[in-house]
């Protein structure tokens, strides 16, 4: 455990820690591009210069290990000058097309320039032109001109995804990243290269030109794409959710997430959401006023239903808290244990690609299993199928999946459910076409909230319980399963729908933080100084 002094602060670090890691862990500011805590050390950007006492030359912090009694300093004039003119070299051939660059606003170059650069370029020669808008693969577009050759993406494909698609070609100022002839950058983790790219050289096709970075607000949540439960940030504004990025959690996902998980924001957006409360009776679909009222009316219906004729179907996509409340109502109020676990991924549940992606595409299968066993419920799916066939189950409540994209059997399963006398569907999505079901006689469809609109916890494949907070509200009138459970048990519930102007406003925003609408009005410039 060597002791060192960094910028006058005495630190004790683990053996083998590099200076930059020590500074990063202790929130000290240091310029860097090529170093990334999740990747190997390259030492190509030469920006993380530090002065070490007793050493005549400046050293790079990323490749220098802390030794006993080291006195390190990166605020001296010598270091500042080195960083400043190192940055000038990086920007020699950089096109400075920030206005059309997607990275603008969250760009490493912009940040470093404001923090450490602030020079006037000394270059008289014209800039080297390179390829623009290069299609690297199904998810990524490359702009060679903007690239500063930090090699983070190359190291990522070498070390993390282990697919080795990317490389640096040519030399000198002709050097650029690219893929080998005919090969595409096509792997399940390709979009991580966009995240780690410190400039706008790699851009995501999905997000390209959709929004400027400064229009987006972010909020942390848990990815519900599979049972790994990666920690992610969702980015949104009043027009909807736009992208998902990973956040660091050493116990779950490290710094990365998969490309599949980046699509989870799509089903939470308005166009795929069930917005209306619908009721089918005597062959006519009728729109009900609000879901809360519909659920309250169901309380009367359900209290009259014979317990053996009532069943509940659930998927592993709701939170632990919701399972507790709905099972509590079912077991204690209705004296009913006909609860079935709809698991489309049971066969592939154990698949694992070695990094993050798991075959079980439900974030909370474990949580549902735990909840069911804690209430002493052990049912078989075949019992439900037989029950529907033999008409012993007459009222069926289905809590549909949120991430409908991963349920291939959605339509056929719902067709099967439609054979019961009274079908109650709690769904977030408008994907299932109920109009096509001939046997459907009495049905209620209640819109529900997705994981970004709820506070709760998921239990991942390893049994790790991860709490998450509500990120924002998209469908203000939709119910959570908690609310639904209280309403069908006959309780009165005061639900205050979120006013329209507060939709898509981050819920975990501290009060003193500048809100998006202020940002748009330019006021944030003044508060930031």
């Amino acid at each position, binding site marked *: 455990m060597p002791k060192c002094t960094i910028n006058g602060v005495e630190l004790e670090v683990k053996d083998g820690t590099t200076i930059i890691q020590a500074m990063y862990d202790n929130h000290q500011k240091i310029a860097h591009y090529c170093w990334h805590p999740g990747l190997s050390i390259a030492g190509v950007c030469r920006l993380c210069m530090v002065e070490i006492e007793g050493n005549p030359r400046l050293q790079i912090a990323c490749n220098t290990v802390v030794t006993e009694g080291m006195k390190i300093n990166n605020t001296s004039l010598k270091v500042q000058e080195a960083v400043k003119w190192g940055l000038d070299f990086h920007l020699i051939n950089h096109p400075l097309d920030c*206005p059309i660059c997607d990275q603008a606003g969250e760009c490493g170059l912009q940040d470093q320039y404001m923090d450490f650069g602030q020079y006037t370029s000394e270059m008289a020669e014209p800039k080297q032109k390179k390829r623009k*808008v290069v299609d690297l693969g199904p998810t990524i577009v490359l702009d060679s001109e903007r690239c500063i050759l930090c090699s983070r993406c190359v190291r990522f494909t070498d070390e993390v995804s282990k697919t080795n698609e990317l490389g640096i070609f040519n030399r000198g100022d002709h050097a650029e990243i690219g893929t080998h002839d005919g090969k595409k950058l096509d792997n399940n983790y390709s979009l991580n290269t966009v995240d780690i790219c410190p400039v706008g050289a790699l851009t995501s096709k999905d997000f390209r030109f959709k929004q400027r970075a400064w229009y987006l607000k972010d909020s942390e949540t848990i990815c519900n794409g599979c049972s790994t439960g990666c920690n992610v940030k969702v980015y949104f504004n009043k027009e909807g959710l736009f992208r998902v990025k990973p956040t660091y959690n050493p116990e779950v996902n490290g710094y990365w997430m998969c490309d599949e998980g980046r699509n989870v924001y799509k089903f939470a957006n308005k166009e795929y959401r069930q917005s209306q409360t619908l009721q089918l009776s005597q062959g006519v679909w009728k729109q009900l006023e609000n879901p809360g009222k519909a659920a309250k009316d169901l309380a009367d219906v359900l209290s009259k239903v014979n317990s053996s004729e009532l069943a509940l179907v659930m998927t592993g996509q709701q939170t632990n808290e919701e399972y507790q409340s709905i099972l509590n109502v079912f077991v204690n109020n209705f004296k009913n244990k006909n609860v079935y676990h709809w698991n489309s991924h049971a066969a592939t549940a154990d698949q694992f690609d070695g990094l993050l992606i798991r075959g079980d595409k439900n974030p909370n299968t474990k949580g549902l299993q735990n909840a069911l066993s804690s209430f002493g419920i052990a049912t078989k799916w075949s019992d439900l199928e037989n029950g529907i066939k033999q008409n012993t189950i007459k009222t069926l409540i289905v809590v549909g999946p949120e991430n409908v994209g991963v349920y291939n059997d959605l339509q056929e399963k719902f067709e099967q459910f439609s054979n019961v006398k009274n079908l109650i569907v709690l769904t977030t999505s408008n994907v299932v076409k109920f109009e096509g079901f001939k046997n459907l006689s009495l049905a209620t469809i209640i819109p529900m909230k997705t994981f970004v609109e709820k506070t709760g916890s998921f239990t991942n494949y390893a049994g790790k319980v991860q709490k998450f907070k509500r990120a924002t509200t998209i469908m203000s009138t939709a119910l959570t399963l908690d609310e639904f459970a209280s309403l069908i048990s006959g309780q009165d519930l005061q639900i205050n729908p979120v006013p329209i102007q507060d939709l898509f406003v981050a819920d975990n925003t501290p009060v003193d933080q500048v809100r998006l609408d202020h940002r748009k009005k330019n006021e944030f410039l003044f508060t930031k100084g």
Partner: protein
Amino acid sequence: MSDTPTVLEQKPASSQWYLIGITKGLVITFSHLIKNIFNKKQMMTINYPEEKYDYSSRFKGNHILTVKKDGAIRCTACMLCATNCPAECIKITASEHPNPEVEKYPISYEIDMLRCVFCGYCEEACPVDAIRLGPEWQTPGLNGADFTYDIKHLAYRANLKGGVQSVVDDKERLKAGI
């Protein structure tokens, strides 16, 4: 009390007399009347709408979107104008341009003229001289007229005669290696 300094005009007691005040007023009115009859040129008012006032070239009126040499729209859809707009009246939808040198361009650019306060911040924010506030200001519409101007109107309306050319040229910029 009277010694306290005040910004208010201390009116003499005589000003409270009706006849004195109105006579003074009438003198001013009639002196202008006579002046205007004999010397029309120095008259302060004009006969709008037959006569129109020429504003300076710096007047901030309706927006113009400039065009490139080939007549295509200059705007790169960077959204800096929309970000800077205090009235939030600019709405841009960006898209990918088939030409990689252009890369990004607006497929729709709308300004809600009824919200616009003509502050000129959009013009200031624009990095490529794509938006200017032009000299036009008399653009009335009938009841129910659409005051949300789109690209067709902003860049190619008839009185611009094919569009105003931007001073920032991509080709020259690329040639110079900037």
